[in-house]
């Protein structure tokens, strides 16, 4: 069990280190890829905790998701290369306070609460995947479907919002979409 705790701590520190790097670097692509590697470290933590399917899924999804975030950061940020070294923050003191309070509360709960018996042995990976499959298509079929439909509506909504509004030929009709 010591090895698991050790590796978990290693990947945890990596995730936290990259997480801090996200907000400290001035170069935007470097900050996006720092978040990417922080999420990958979180994925590796899942692997260490023997939930293999979730870990592999997290690692796979985050690679593409954060790369797409990287190009959006290049589009929308003032100095994406970070050569100018601008400070892009405001209300620093308040946010540090809020961050510390949030982390402190969670840590307090983690340390003080009595978690009861901790299982030592987790089911085998292939069995976990099978059970998760049964759960997905069995009891929580509704959640699974709504999650799928939500992603679909989100895709359509995001594209609809992002598409430039064509100026309709205003041949007298009132309904000119701004």
């Amino acid at each position, binding site marked *: 069990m010591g090895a698991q705790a050790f590796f978990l701590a290693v990947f945890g520190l990596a995730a936290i280190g990259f997480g801090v790097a996200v907000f400290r670097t001035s170069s935007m692509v470097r900050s996006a890829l720092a978040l990417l590697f922080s999420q990958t470290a979180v994925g590796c933590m899942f692997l260490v905790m023997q939930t*293999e*399917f979730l870990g592999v899924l997290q*690692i*796979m999804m985050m690679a593409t998701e954060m790369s797409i975030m990287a190009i959006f950061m290049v589009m929308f940020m003032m100095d994406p290369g970070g050569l100018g070294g601008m400070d892009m923050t405001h209300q620093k003191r308040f946010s540090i306070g809020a961050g510390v309070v949030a982390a402190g509360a969670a840590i307090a709960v983690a340390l003080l609460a009595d978690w009861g018996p901790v299982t030592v042995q987790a089911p085998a990976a*292939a069995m976990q995947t099978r059970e998760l499959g049964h759960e997905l298509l069995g009891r929580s079929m509704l959640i699974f479907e709504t999650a799928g439909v939500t992603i679909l509506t989100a895709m359509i909504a995001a594209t609809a919002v992002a598409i430039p509004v064509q100026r309709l030929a205003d041949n007298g009709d009132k309904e000119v979409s701004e």
Partner: protein
Amino acid sequence: MTVAIVLLTLFGSAWLLAVIEGWTVTGRLQPAAPLLSGLAHLGRESIVPRSPDRVFFEAAPVLLLVVAVLGAAVLPLAPDLVIADLGTGALFINAALAYVLVALIMAGWGPNGAYAMIGGWRFLGQLIAYSMLIVMPITAVAMRAESLVNTAIVGSQADLWNIVYQPLGFVLFYIAAMALAFRSPFDLPTAEGELAGGVDAEYTGVRLAVLRLARLTLVVTLAAATTVFYLGGWHGPLLPPWAWSLIKTLAVAVSMLLAGGYLPRIREADLMRWCWTLGIPLALLNIVIVGLLILVVP
């Protein structure tokens, strides 16, 4: 021990691929050419462009190589010859190979050059086209084997290979694999005619050697994945199992290498349009067909 064997076969077939590629380009079969050109790269000056993003510039080729090797870690050459037979092996290959995109974005953004940057972001567009066409055929393959474990997948193809069982899936996976390895008809990030080498234009010296080795190893890994998923891995009459998977992997890798020379580069707009409007419906159809085959034909 198995790690050494698998790595040896991986880099050995990458070296064999380099020899074959050299043979097709120069017309002369020189077995030592890849080693000599590799050493020559070591000798050459390694140029770093002005104000690069040094971390990305250094990390990209290494990450590409690590990703290619990591992808090969879960691929079985023989029933017992696999580095890590993960419970979700088939998905792990896709998870590892998703970082080819990250490596190319780093290689694009690192050297602070217009061609490289455009090449890097173009590969992001290419990923949006091919990524669905890799995951869905893997789902169909896993459906037939009723497991994501690679050795089980190969085991399920003992009597009938998947290329015969689900040819549509094979075609889609083969095309998506070539797009993932940015080989010739899909070499948008390193387009020689449009971006003058694009992503690997700024690399020289030892980094270029690592990048070239990584690209060849990536082709070998994808060929090994195609063999495991569709060509019945180590199954084959006379020869020992590892020999069969090696032969099939090399055959698929050489076909991936040479198929590109006979096709012009595809337009990015066409690639995305065809992959989404044609590829994904076909992939879903393939899943439906495999589902029916499993249920109806016991």
